[in-house]
């Protein structure tokens, strides 16, 4: 049986796994596997939604039904339930965001690809930046800058405790929210990839160390399979949570202070 030699295996896995080499030598450091994956995800989403709605029928075909379910879920449960009637105009953006994050997360378990672009902090940072600008801009456009700042920073509390509460509110709304939103998606994908690397490569390392450890290797690989299913669940959940939190922040910005 062909088993990779241990000195070739990058075990224990390190942060270097997440810096893939440039694809074409002269092209520059930015053209890596991640770039291709992001372009692939965008292309797939565009093609899917275009093809699914090319000839819409009353009794939907399967592709049309999938597209309608995804859009309906985002419009009803994410936009309308959280934001209210005003939220429906955000539904297309939430659908696209959900599909993009779901697809890039699922790339982490699809054989052949097996890494998610979101495991590199840059991509969640961009998605979070869009959310950050969006909820502030929506609030400022509805209320005007001064009134928006007042209602988001000044809670309803007695005057003597406001010097303590206002910095806390500022920190919580304008600093912690974007940091944790990006870090949550990044850390989930990073940790998931690391766990899969540890168990899969660990099986090979055990086998190379001593052939008698083969049953332990097998256990390691079975656990890797179980963890792949867990990764699938985490991928879907993280896409859902990112979109739900974006919607919740927009709702917070649009809410009238009593």
């Amino acid at each position, binding site marked *: 049986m062909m088993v990779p030699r241990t000195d070739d295996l990058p075990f224990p896995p*390190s*942060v270097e796994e997440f810096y893939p080499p440039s694809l074409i030598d002269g092209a520059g450091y930015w053209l890596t596997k991640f770039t291709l994956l992001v372009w692939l995800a965008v292309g797939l989403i565009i093609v899917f939604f275009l093809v699914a709605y090319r000839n819409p029928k009353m009794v939907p075909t399967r592709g049309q039904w999938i597209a309608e379910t995804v859009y309906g879920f985002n419009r009803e*449960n994410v936009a309308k*339930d959280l934001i209210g009637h005003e939220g429906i105009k955000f539904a297309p953006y939430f659908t696209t965001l959900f599909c993009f994050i779901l697809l890039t997360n699922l790339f982490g378990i699809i054989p052949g690809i097996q890494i998610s672009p979101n495991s590199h902090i840059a991509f969640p940072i961009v998605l979070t930046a869009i959310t950050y600008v969006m909820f502030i801009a929506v609030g400022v456009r509805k209320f005007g800058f001064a009134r928006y700042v007042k209602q988001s920073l000044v809670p309803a509390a007695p005057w003597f405790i406001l010097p303590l509460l206002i910095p806390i509110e500022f920190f919580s709304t304008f600093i912690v929210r974007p940091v*944790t939103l990006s*870090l*949550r998606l*990044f*850390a*989930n994908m*990073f*940790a998931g990839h*690391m766990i899969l690397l540890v168990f899969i490569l660990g099986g090979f390392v055990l086998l190379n160390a001593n052939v008698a450890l083969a049953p332990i290797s097998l256990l390691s690989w079975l656990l890797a399979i179980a963890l792949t299913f867990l990764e699938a669940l985490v991928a879907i*959940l*993280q896409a*859902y*949570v990112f979109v*739900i*939190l974006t919607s*919740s922040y927009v709702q917070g910005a649009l809410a009238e202070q009593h």
Partner: protein
Amino acid sequence: MILAEISGSLSAVGYGLAAIGPGIGVGIIFASYIQSTARQPESARITQPFMWIGFALVEALALFGIAFGFIWLNP
């Protein structure tokens, strides 16, 4: 004179400590969902989105532990 010396990765110890809080937190979230559904089954659909949001927020802290364990690793 060195009285006692501990060697090895402090990041691993740090991650272990960091995992205590989120472990308890996630347990509390799901325990409360199960209990509330047992008391009033019709509320299950209403409270489910909050369960997932709460779980992701608490889990994020445990995952920061994993990620920062690697970032702060001493070479």
